[in-house]
């Protein structure tokens, strides 16, 4: 085994060209009659931080357990460094895991916990000691070597779990909800530290999380799963800007969606009829996958935009500088929630769902002194409108 901490090559900025280290091919998993995973195909590249993201019960943890070897897929295969690992027992895989509960052995000191895996590999005592002290330094626990786990804080226990897995110099490190057991402040600090640690050791990280902001902040690429199916694998910014469907759009950030009744392609793009917004002509020349031209059924396409792309002006403001082809939604001024950098303004629209807009301070200035219920118009530029297959429940 090579020592990844010894080579000082910094992590490449772009891991997109790296070869895949973990390949999931048509992975399916059933527990009795319950389908946990269905035809999942992912290539995880060497050296990247890869996040498996989804709501609880989406199958992300099952996928992680398949990679670690604690579950065997019902169908499909798992390749690690191009070798079939589908049925390899967990203690024989070059993959290590940081458990959600950390699972630090309570009857062993920090050093004994960290050296346990190396003892199982029957390494020489000198090498064990040397590797343990290196990894303890990397996680800043060098002064806690002889402590027992009950003398450690939650954050320190997590470092022990990290060190214990990293000391084995795994090809891939699996982290199951690594930040969920920490309090909010520690979580933010640990986020950064995990990314830095990954840069130092260069090991591929696969992180399971239900927290989209965590995945977006840490991962190089994110796989979004929902009810056992893979929805999209992409970089955080691509997920945000080009979601493949309404579920992803709503899970990564927030969206307002409007159902459509009819879509026709013509020379200028797409003519879209909606129940709420009337008929719109958008410069969309090819329909996204999953959206068909013609009459739309209940599960057809939706028009969506994010609160960030909404701007608000007073209804009687004639110096309206929004472009003339923007979507205009009249409504009444609702609550304004101050968020520091920006504010979230609610526009109520009678029985229709209200619209939230995220506006900065300068945009807020004109609304500041207006009473609740002042007539306003919510604008959204055409380029920010997304036509997506409706996968929301």
């Amino acid at each position: 085994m090579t020592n990844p901490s010894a080579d000082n090559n910094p992590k490449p900025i772009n891991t997109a060209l790296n070869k895949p280290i973990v390949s999931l091919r048509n992975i399916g998993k059933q527990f009795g009659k319950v389908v946990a995973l269905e035809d999942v195909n992912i290539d995880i590249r060497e050296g990247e931080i890869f996040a498996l993201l989804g709501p609880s019960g989406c199958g992300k943890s099952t996928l992680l357990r398949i990679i670690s070897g604690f579950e065997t897929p019902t169908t499909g295969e798992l390749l690690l460094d191009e070798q079939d690992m589908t049925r390899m027992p967990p203690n024989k895989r070059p993959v290590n895991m940081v458990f959600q509960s950390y699972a630090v052995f309570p009857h062993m000191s920090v050093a004994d916990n960290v050296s346990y895996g190396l003892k199982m590999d029957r390494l020489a005592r000198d090498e064990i000691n040397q590797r343990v002290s290196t990894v303890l330094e990397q996680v800043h626990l060098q002064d806690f070597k002889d402590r027992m786990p009950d003398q450690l804080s939650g954050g320190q226990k997590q470092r022990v779990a990290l060190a214990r897995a990293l000391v084995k110099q795994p090809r891939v490190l699996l982290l199951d909800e690594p930040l969920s057991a920490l309090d909010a402040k520690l979580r933010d600090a640990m986020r950064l530290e995990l990314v830095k640690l990954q840069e130092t050791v260069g090991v591929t990280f696969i992180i399971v999380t239900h927290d989209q902001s965590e995945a977006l902040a840490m991962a190089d690429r994110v796989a979004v799963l929902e009810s056992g199916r893979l929805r999209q694998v992409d970089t955080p910014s691509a997920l945000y800007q080009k979601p493949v469907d309404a579920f992803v759009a709503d899970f990564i950030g927030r969206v307002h969606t409007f159902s459509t009744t009819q879509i026709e392609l013509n020379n200028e793009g797409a003519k879209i009829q909606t129940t709420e917004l009337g008929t719109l002509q958008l410069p969309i020349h090819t329909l996204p996958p999953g959206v068909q031209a013609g009459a739309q059924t209940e599960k057809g396409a939706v028009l969506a935009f994010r609160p960030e792309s909404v701007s608000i002006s007073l209804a009687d403001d004639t110096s309206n500088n929004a472009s003339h082809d923007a979507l205009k939604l009249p409504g009444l001024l609702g609550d304004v929630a101050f968020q520091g950098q920006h504010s979230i303004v609610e526009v109520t629209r009678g029985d229709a769902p209200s619209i939230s807009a995220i506006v900065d301070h300068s945009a807020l200035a004109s609304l500041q002194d207006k009473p609740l219920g002042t007539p306003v118009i919510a604008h959204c530029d055409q380029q920010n409108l997304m036509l997506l297959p409706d996968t929301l429940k």
Partner: protein
Amino acid sequence: MNRNPKKPFEYSRKWSMRFVFLITMVFLYAPILVLIVFSFNNSRRGGNVIWKGFTTKYYAKAFANEELMLAFANSMTIAVTSTIVSVFLGAMTAIFLWRFRFPFKPLAEGLVSLPIIIPEICMGVSLAMFFSQMGWWTTGNTPWPLNLSNIILAHITFSFPFAAMVIRTRLQNFNREMEEAAKDLGASEYRVFKDILLPHMKPGLIAAALLTFTLSLDDFVITFFTSGPNTVTFPVKIYSMVRFSITPEINAASTLLIVLTLILTFLALRYQRLTDAKHD
């Protein structure tokens, strides 16, 4: 009381509660205390409630009583053997019931704990019949300690369900991720058991050993039905001595039994506290 007013849950400051507590303590411990005190009474009759001066001669007499000492040796042999076997069986049963899912599991669980609720007298009679039916080979000539084998078997039968119950309770709060973590780090099934599960079970094993040892040491009913004339245990011997006449010697012997149990309990609790403070 001129201190702060009583708060609703400060039961210890209510006189009614203090009274109930006092009465409870008196009924629980007064007889034992009297027994111990009168083991030092310089009187020929143990049931004599008149204090006639301090003496330790009845302890000397008890130690010199060969039959009593043989009964004591028998009891210790039975208790030690049945404890070792019971804890082993109990641990196996507990792990089996905790770890695996199989058809009719609730039935198996019920059957294992049945000896706990079956009246001792029924078990005593059934075991006595069982041994005589199958012609168990303990006769007057069977050499010691083999002549104790049927009592040992009987004790294992009634005490291993207790051991299983105690150990299973301990296993219930084992974090299964710990086991997976060890496997993930390269441990085999055997190493997981030895390095992770066994240390976790240790307090449970000690508690189970203590429980089964005391159960065996002071069991009377089942032993009475399965013991022969040459295989008298300590409690059975004391019973026959009481039937003859109550002397301070019996008080002394009983006190020894109490002291022994107390020392064992103290050691076990102390050990458990030490391991708990270190690990949990």
